[in-house]
């Protein structure tokens, strides 16, 4: 079943076409990776899908509904949630507070309701706290829940970034380079974590440079180069695709003998 459809999505920065008529579909419950050399437009594509950048042209259809042009917070509310490169978290809150506030898009109370502490607001708050503890347990963060986020080690911060995204109960989760800067051991743990999320029925779009992790995790892979989609297939197909090899290591040049 197709959960998300991206049609002819395009972004121009002046004369530069960062994303050039990219079209693809994501199926329910799969891990779909987007790879490509630096500057291929992967992160820009993510920002376009989640409305963090306005598009030049094209559409994004999520569960049959056109979500192009909605504000970023509304896209998140629909169930399309992104994580950020590096460690984007609320640094001056504890791990638990980070995940509790991240439940915001499930909040039913109005601003006035929050101020007056109505029954709905109190119910929400209790439910968010329980759910946050559960998410932290699932992602192996329960021991550091009261630790201030900026004091957490790198691996935990990445996990916390995903915990924040999970709090919104996403249908489609967009992970932006979750493995960068990780040692093999941390990567293994993160691979298991992403699989666990996928097994809960969450569709995952993954931008990543760590090819070993990408090949292990992905059901399908899309390759971008200079903003254009040059290949689309299973990991095995991608590994033997001429266009992909050319994009990554260049064409063999007979005259130069390389």
């Amino acid at each position: 079943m197709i959960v998300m459809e991206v049609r002819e999505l395009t972004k121009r920065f002046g004369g530069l076409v960062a994303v050039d008529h990219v079209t693809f579909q994501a199926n329910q419950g799969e891990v779909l990776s987007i790879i490509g050399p630096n500057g291929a437009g992967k992160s820009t594509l993510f920002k376009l899908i989640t409305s963090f950048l306005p598009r030049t042209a094209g559409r994004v259809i999520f569960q049959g509904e056109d979500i192009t042009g909605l504000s970023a917070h509304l896209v998140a509310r629909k169930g399309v949630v992104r994580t950020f490169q590096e460690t984007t978290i609320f640094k001056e809150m504890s791990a638990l507070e980070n995940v509790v506030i991240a439940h915001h898009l499930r909040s039913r109370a109005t601003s006035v309701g929050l101020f007056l502490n109505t029954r709905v607001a109190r119910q929400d708050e209790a439910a968010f706290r329980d759910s946050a503890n559960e998410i932290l347990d699932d992602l192996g963060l329960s021991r550091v829940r009261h630790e201030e986020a900026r004091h957490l080690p790198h691996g935990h911060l990445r996990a916390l970034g995903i915990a924040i995204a999970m709090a919104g109960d996403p249908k489609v989760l967009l992970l932006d380079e979750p493995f960068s800067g990780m040692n093999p051991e941390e990567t293994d743990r993160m691979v298991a974590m992403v699989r666990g999320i996928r097994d809960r029925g969450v569709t995952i779009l993954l931008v990543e440079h760590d090819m070993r992790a990408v090949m292990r995790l992905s059901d399908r892979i899309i390759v971008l180069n200079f903003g254009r989609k040059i290949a689309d297939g299973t990991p095995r197909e991608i590994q033997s695709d001429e266009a992909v090899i050319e994009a990554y290591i260049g064409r063999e040049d007979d005259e130069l003998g390389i």
Partner: protein
Amino acid sequence: MRLRVVAALAGLALYLVVVPLVFRESRYLLGVLTTASVLSLISLGVWLTFAIGRINIGQAAFALVGGYTTAILSVKLGVSFWLCLPASGLVAALVGAVIGWPILRLKGVYFAMITLTLTEAARLAALNGGSITQGATGILNIPLPGEVTLAGVVLVPAFRALNVHLAFYYLAAILLVLGLVTVTRIATCRLGWIFRSLRQDEALAASIGVNVAKYRVLAFALGCSFAGIAGAFFTVSQQSIYPSSFGVPDSVYYMLYCFLGGLSYVSGPVVGAFVLFLGFELLHGLREYQMLTYAAIMITLMLWLPNGLLSLRLPARPGVKADTA
């Protein structure tokens, strides 16, 4: 927790009962305390914009908006002060929302600069407001608050029938307590967490479904309404308003009260306003050296206690601290 409740009640009793009883005939002292209370209220509004990570040096503009609202409504249309007061807060909040919507996209020093020019723009608007604001002449002879009756029962007697200074002291005290309760409640409920999330990372806040633009405007407009109410108070207690009644130096002071009181605490602006304003008055005897000494004390405070006066006793609570860069 228990101890804090007792301390708060004791402070409240001192503020609302003991001080007015002891100083009821001391017009000067009562006046100084009244002013400090209302300055605290304005600074609480500035604190709300600090809470979302914006340095606001435009608060005097909204005090001016509130002041003129009350002056125009009461002098030209004969509206009772007790309606002018909330109307001033409302008008200031509306103006704040309209102006805040576009300018809150700016951050850091850019937002601060824009708000600074806002203060000056408000003064020029009042100066060139023609017959509405009466230009440099200002609006004079603003009536004192009248009486409030409900079903024949006098709830608040007319101020001219009372010890006016004591009456204004109480009005200021009640406004400040209400303001403090409001802001404390905001800071402790989810709204406070939303504001903190905005201060720490707006993009991340948007990614978790927070309507960033809406909450930014909400915090700013609420802060502006505090300025509007306080502006209305000063206008009626001085029975006049001029374009220069609230200016750039005032805006800077309101911001400094927050800084020097401690941005991490809701009570920071109140402590800052009281300590600094009373301090300034106490230095009165130094005459031409008053400003110099005051400035030296301020600089020393900033160097010695960069997290504000309140960091002296209370341990800094993580997560509530401001990073406005």
